[in-house]
């Protein structure tokens, strides 16, 4: 048993959880998939209990893990938080030192939560989480030592949720005001439109937590353009993106500079707005 002061949360299963996991597992074509679906279902139910205790709405039915056919073909354990995004609940067996991310769970996720299983399987421990924007698109495993404390998931969800409600009208208005005929504005518009608001907020959250305010424009602009590592895997239309791809062949470096400058300014303004609601009382 881990020390109680370690950063874990214990979730005890109920009879109804076990029955649900058994029901989902029964349809699987192989014994290996049977076990996989059993664990995945219990992992999702445990995270569901925790997230609901954090007063977040969840929709089990909307997840691929709750779809009778999709879970037969793919190794998924997703939990949908309506209006916010999907959390992947990754089972960790005793002795494992990392969570493994099959390719099917690297798209359209806001976070990965490690769910530790140990005999006698009457409970699990939520070991920690990793925001999706902090790993690269090709990441196949995350070491348990790299995870953030599970209790910080609340702060992360709150920043995404409050950031979406704060930025949604701003970004929609901004996109509709950009001129299609102006090459710079057109490029900026394309860059903004191909990302979900949740994804933009998650990227800004990373910039906000990692950089001083004087770097918000530069770092936020780079994040919007999809430059640098951890471009994110929250969905939207951003994968493998770079500014060059969205511009025509005869684009001059001046236009690129202007686009970058515009993105920097947009990022700076939006991050200032977010700082007003994200600031900690501790200072």
């Amino acid at each position, binding site marked *: 048993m*881990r020390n*109680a*002061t370690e950063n*874990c949360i*214990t*979730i*005890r*299963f*109920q009879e*109804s959880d*076990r029955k649900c996991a058994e029901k989902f*597992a*029964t*349809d699987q*074509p*192989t*014994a290996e998939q*049977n*076990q996989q679906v*059993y*664990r995945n279902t219990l992992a999702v139910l445990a995270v*569901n*209990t925790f997230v*609901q*205790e954090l*007063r977040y*709405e*969840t929709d089990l*039915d909307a997840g691929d893990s709750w*779809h*009778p*056919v*999709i879970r037969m*073909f*793919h190794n998924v354990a997703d939990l949908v938080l309506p209006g916010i995004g999907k959390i992947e609940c990754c089972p960790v067996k005793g002795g494992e030192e990392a969570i493994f991310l099959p*390719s*099917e769970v690297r*798209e*359209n996720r806001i976070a990965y939560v490690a769910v530790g299983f140990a005999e006698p*399987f*009457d409970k699990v*421990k939520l070991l920690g989480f990793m925001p999706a924007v902090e790993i690269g698109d090709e990441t196949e495993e995350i070491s348990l030592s790299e995870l953030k404390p599970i*209790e910080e998931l*609340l702060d992360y969800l*709150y920043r995404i*949720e*409050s950031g979406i*409600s704060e930025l949604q009208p701003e970004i929609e208005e901004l996109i509709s005001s950009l001129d299609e005929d102006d090459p710079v504005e057109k490029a900026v518009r394309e860059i903004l439109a191909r990302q979900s608001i949740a994804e933009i907020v998650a990227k800004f959250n990373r910039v906000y937590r990692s950089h001083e305010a004087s770097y918000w424009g530069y770092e936020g602009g780079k994040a919007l353009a999809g430059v640098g590592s951890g471009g994110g895997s929250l*969905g939207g*239309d951003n*994968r*493998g993106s770079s500014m060059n791809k969205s511009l025509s062949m005869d684009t001059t470096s001046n236009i690129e500079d202007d686009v970058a400058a515009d993105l920097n300014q947009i990022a700076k303004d939006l991050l200032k707005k977010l700082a*007003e*609601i*994200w*600031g*900690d*009382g*501790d*200072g």
Partner: protein
Amino acid sequence: MSGTREGGNRETEKKFPAIVHKAANACDINVSTRKNATMTRQSDIFSGIIQVSRCYPNAPVNNELDFKVKSLILQALAEPEDPRRKTIQSLLALTDYLPKSKTKERIDLGLQPYYDEAVKHTEKYMIEHLEKFPERYDLDINNASASEVTQCFVRWYNLNIKPDCIDVRRRYKKIKFVDLDAPASQENATSKGETIADPKPLLPIDEVEQKERFRQLKAYFETDPEQRLRNCATRKYPSCNCWELIKRRILTSPPQTFQEIKKDLGIPLDNITRLWYNKCVPLLAKIAEEIGYEIDAKKLQQIEEE
């Protein structure tokens, strides 16, 4: 930054008498906070001296305060709801002194306006769900040290006060919130005493039968014998049909992302995702049911509504 911290000191000093009174009330002790009387009488709250630095995060924990927290929790756990209310109120009155606790001053700036209303919800939640506290931290509360109990209590308090502040904020901003008193799914509501003794992860299945049924399902998706999958398409882009998406997202391993499909087919992302979630996903369930899988009625209802 240092200016803010100094400002915080002055602010805390101003609030100090109120904090002392709050804690003293929690312990049923009368104190005076008149000038020159504060530092002597505050020691009545506990036999040890509570330092002003108690109000700051990361300050060392006062052992006697830890014992007080632990004893109040043990007392509340043994009480029915009505007396428990008073004990929880006493416990919450101590949070100002507990390092790292998210008090009104320490919680996110954007949540501070909602704190006073939220703390009432937190109090109610703690009264009704105190049994979850030792469970969440795997805590043998009788045998754990007072310091360990206090640290876990602060974590639990933070995990409730902040969600309650967020929830109150949602109400003011008219965002949909979750009512914990009426869980969406009764099946998933937690309660003590329903622990599974020893569930086995490996279940007995008829592997031959399951494999055969799975083979049939996969063959159906691969061949689309009734052309139902390819006929299920967007009007504007017939090449974007369910069969095409199933081949790419279900039968391919690893599955293609929507982005990759968009690039391959040259079709807007919205059209692809709408077709997938509104038509293909329900159709997958319908076909599985026809092949003999037991499908939840909710999944089938989705397709009947289409």
